[in-house]
């Protein structure tokens, strides 16, 4: 705080330290101004703009140099839609204090937006015109004008209040209340707004009460109607109404259940069945795929088995062949060993057991060589023994020995082996075998005496049937022929 005369910084004393002037009263004025400024600030912060304007004006009346109060007053004016009043305060503030003043910033902001300033100016003019219409009793025009103004400048509190007044005059209390509430939101402490609102609310509440009372009276007068309150609600119903609520509830439940069953039966169940069918089809398809895969596997395994079986069989055959080969070579070795020891008969028997198919070429040559030697000796020996046995009438041994000779060489001794073999069989009663060899004699040695004898024996010999076992007629037991010729063959 500075002295108003010399500008010196004042202390707590009641006299200026610079010029000595008494400053007690001055200090009080400044403090009062500040007090009202603070009050205006607190009111503005709670949107009590009318109260703020009042306080700030008081502050400035005490101290016009309270720049903060003046600037705040300008802001409040701007907030209630009084643009020109706001500009005035800021201009004065700037003229009183040129430096470090927020008013400069506010004025620059307004000047930058000149179109907005022009719009606000137009709204002010229209508001003034609307006020004129009201005074001229042209309320409809005033209403229209005010609506335009408020659409362009919604912060104009006076506009809301004037429009609300017009609606109150027309009895449109709801509309009036709407605009009054808007004005109350901008300036909450405006006494005019509050007074109008009180009036409007009172009227509206009174209407509601009147309507309620009328309704109640109307219902009371009507004997067919009864009314009662249930909480905050008034329920009016005919007096003789029967309460079917329980039956209706049951019927509704039944209908609901039926609808639910129909929905389930026609919508849900088919879809579930379809889904189940699809799942089954998929499972069947997978099973079929699995089966076909397994079948393929089985077929391939079966072919492998067949192949392996063939291989096994081939191996078996090869093994048997090897065994047969080994047996043939063993027999050949046995025959060769017997031949080396001059055991002709053993060699001959061994040779007869040799399967020449399994012998190699060299082995076959050996076999042939040994066989030829052995056969010759063996045949000769066998023939001699057979013939001797025949002469001794030992036909069994004779047939055995001579059979071996014939098996090895049919034409031995120019058919004598065959002839004596046939004779032996005949004497033994084996006519079938005898006939066989007699026939060979006839075929192989025609024109010989032995062939003629053979033919004779064939003609006279009764070949038995299968059931006959008796002796044959005309078959002498000795070796002589029926014509008396000797059967003894010369020994060669």
């Amino acid at each position, binding site marked *: 705080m500075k002295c108003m005369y010399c500008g010196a910084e004042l202390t707590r004393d009641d006299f200026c330290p610079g010029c000595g002037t008494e400053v007690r009263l001055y200090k009080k004025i400044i403090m009062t101004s500040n007090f009202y400024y603070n009050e205006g600030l607190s009111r503005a912060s709670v949107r009590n703009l009318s109260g703020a304007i009042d306080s700030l004006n008081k502050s400035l009346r005490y101290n016009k140099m309270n720049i903060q109060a003046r600037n705040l007053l300008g802001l409040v004016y701007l907030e209630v839609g009084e643009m*020109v009043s706001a500009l005035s305060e800021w201009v004065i503030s700037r003229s009183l204090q040129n430096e470090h003043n927020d008013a400069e910033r506010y004025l620059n902001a307004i000047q930058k937006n000149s179109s907005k300033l022009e719009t606000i100016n137009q709204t002010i003019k229209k*508001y*003034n015109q609307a006020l004129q219409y009201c005074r001229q009793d042209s309320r409809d025009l005033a209403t229209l004008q005010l609506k335009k103004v408020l659409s362009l400048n919604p912060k104009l509190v006076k506009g809301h209040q004037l429009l609300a007044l017009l609606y109150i005059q027309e009895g449109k209390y709801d509309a009036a209340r709407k605009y009054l509430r808007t004005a109350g939101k901008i300036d909450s402490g405006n006494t005019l707004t509050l007074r109008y609102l009180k009036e409007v609310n009172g009227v509206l509440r009174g209407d509601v009460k009147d309507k309620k009372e009328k309704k109640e009276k109307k219902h009371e007068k009507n004997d067919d109607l009864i009314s009662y309150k249930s909480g905050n609600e008034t329920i009016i119903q005919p007096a003789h109404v029967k309460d079917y609520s329980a039956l209706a509830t049951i019927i509704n439940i039944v209908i609901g259940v039926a609808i639910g069953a129909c929905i389930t039966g026609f919508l849900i169940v088919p879809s579930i069945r379809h889904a189940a069918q699809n799942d089954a089809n998929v499972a069947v398809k997978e099973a079929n795929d699995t089966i076909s895969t397994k079948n393929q596997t089985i077929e391939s395994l079966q072919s492998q088995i067949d192949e392996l079986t063939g291989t096994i069989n081939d191996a078996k055959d090869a093994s048997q062949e090897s065994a047969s080969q080994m047996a043939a070579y063993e027999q050949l070795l046995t025959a060769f060993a017997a031949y080396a020891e001059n055991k002709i008969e053993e060699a001959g028997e061994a040779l007869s057991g040799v399967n020449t198919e399994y012998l190699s070429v060299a082995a076959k040559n050996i076999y042939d060589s040994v066989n030829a030697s052995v056969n010759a000796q063996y045949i000769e020996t066998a023939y001699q023994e057979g013939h001797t046995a025949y002469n001794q009438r030992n036909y069994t041994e004779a047939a055995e020995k001579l059979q071996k000779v014939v098996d090895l060489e049919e034409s031995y001794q120019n058919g004598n082996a065959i002839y004596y073999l046939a004779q032996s069989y005949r004497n033994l009663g084996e006519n079938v075998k005898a006939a066989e060899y007699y026939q060979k004699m006839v075929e192989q040695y025609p024109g010989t005496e032995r062939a003629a004898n053979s033919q004779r024996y064939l003609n006279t010999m009764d070949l038995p049937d299968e059931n006959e076992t008796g002796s044959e007629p005309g078959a002498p037991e000795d070796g002589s022929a029926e014509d008396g010729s000797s059967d003894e063959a010369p020994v060669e």
Partner: protein
Amino acid sequence: MIDFEEELKKFQPSLEVEEAEDAIYNRNLTDMTDILRELMKGNEHA
């Protein structure tokens, strides 16, 4: 009960931008400090 005419009288026209200059010039900025100064001067002369 609200009297429309009486209430209407309370509504005054707003200042337009063109009127701002005159309003500023015609503004009486005398405050309590000015009055105090005048009083102090009067006392000194006395």
